[in-house]
């Protein structure tokens, strides 16, 4: 069968969501930020909540997320996305409010905002891109950097005796009473993408219940910062990041007995 006979509107099975603006993504080739943006937008489109959703962009490589996502968005000072999301949600409790944050943003400079929003149980969704590094500023060590991992500020590898231990902030947040759903995902393979999308969908659905924070970590590559090709970075991530940051649900809602 001729390829041109297949390429017809009636045979379309997958196309980039219309909720992306026309602007090309500013991310490096192969970076998981783009994939994660798309999954969030697909979920918003499929739930039919385009005009009821407000996103909060971080400081970091995703600082311009509002340029790419054709939805209402604000941009917070570094690490303050959960505080801004708290304000937005409290003023407009019927809106779906989400933050989108890197590990430098969420787990370093914004640790206080993150922990208190999660402990207060704000009815928001938080999407956390963990690439173990400060991507935007040149690959410096982050609290999430693995032991032994080389970064521009730990060129011989993170020595935990001097530089301290990596912070598993997601496990920590799962222990707080204000988080309702906490999960860790990835977006580097087709299967991972399908699971991550389900998790993001769950997170937005749970937001309707007003039971607290729904939190999705995405372990992602920063191939530029790690100084690897995208496919090598994804392999390195599987071999090194996943043992330390295992994928899967960390806290799932206990369904009330009928």
């Amino acid at each position, binding site marked *: 069968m001729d*390829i041109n006979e297949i390429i017809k509107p009636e045979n379309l099975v997958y*196309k980039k969501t219309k909720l992306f603006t026309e602007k*090309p993504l500013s991310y490096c*080739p192969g970076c*998981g*930020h783009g994939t994660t943006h798309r999954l969030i937008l697909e979920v918003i489109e499929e739930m039919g909540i385009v005009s009821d959703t407000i996103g909060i962009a971080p400081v970091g490589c995703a600082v311009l997320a509002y340029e790419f996502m054709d939805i209402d968005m604000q941009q917070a000072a570094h690490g303050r996305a959960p505080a801004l999301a708290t304000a937005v949600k409290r003023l407009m409790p019927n809106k779906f409010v989400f933050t989108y944050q890197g590990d430098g943003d969420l787990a370093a400079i914004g640790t206080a905002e993150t922990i208190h929003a999660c402990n207060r149980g704000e009815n928001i969704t938080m999407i956390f891109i963990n690439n173990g590094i400060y991507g935007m500023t040149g690959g410096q060590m982050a609290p999430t950097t693995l032991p032994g991992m080389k970064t521009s500020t730990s060129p011989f590898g993170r020595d935990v005796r001097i530089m301290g231990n990596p912070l598993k902030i997601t496990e920590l947040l799962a222990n707080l009473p204000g988080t309702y759903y906490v999960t860790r995902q990835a977006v580097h393979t087709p299967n991972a993408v*399908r699971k991550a999308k389900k998790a993001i969908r769950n997170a937005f659905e749970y937001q309707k219940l007003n039971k607290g924070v729904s939190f999705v970590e995405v372990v992602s590559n920063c191939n530029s910062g790690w100084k690897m090709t995208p496919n090598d970075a994804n392999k390195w991530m599987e071999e090194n990041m996943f043992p330390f940051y295992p994928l899967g649900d960390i806290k799932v809602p206990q369904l009330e007995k009928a």
Partner: protein
Amino acid sequence: MAKVKGAIVIDVERCKGCCVCIPACPQDVIQIVKEVNGKGYQYAFPANHDACTGCINCAIVCPDGVITVYRVKVES
């Protein structure tokens, strides 16, 4: 028996040549060309297009969302 046949269209000017779609394809359809696009990236291309089943794996892992997928059922 009904068989499925697929086809992909890559937005070449927006492809960044990251190669993430290549291992995602179970049929080894995609390769990277030697030429570069307007941004200077060597871009992806369905070199083995006849083998495509339209499974959408490549499209859902593409960080830039540049792959569109079509699929038909063919009676044989």
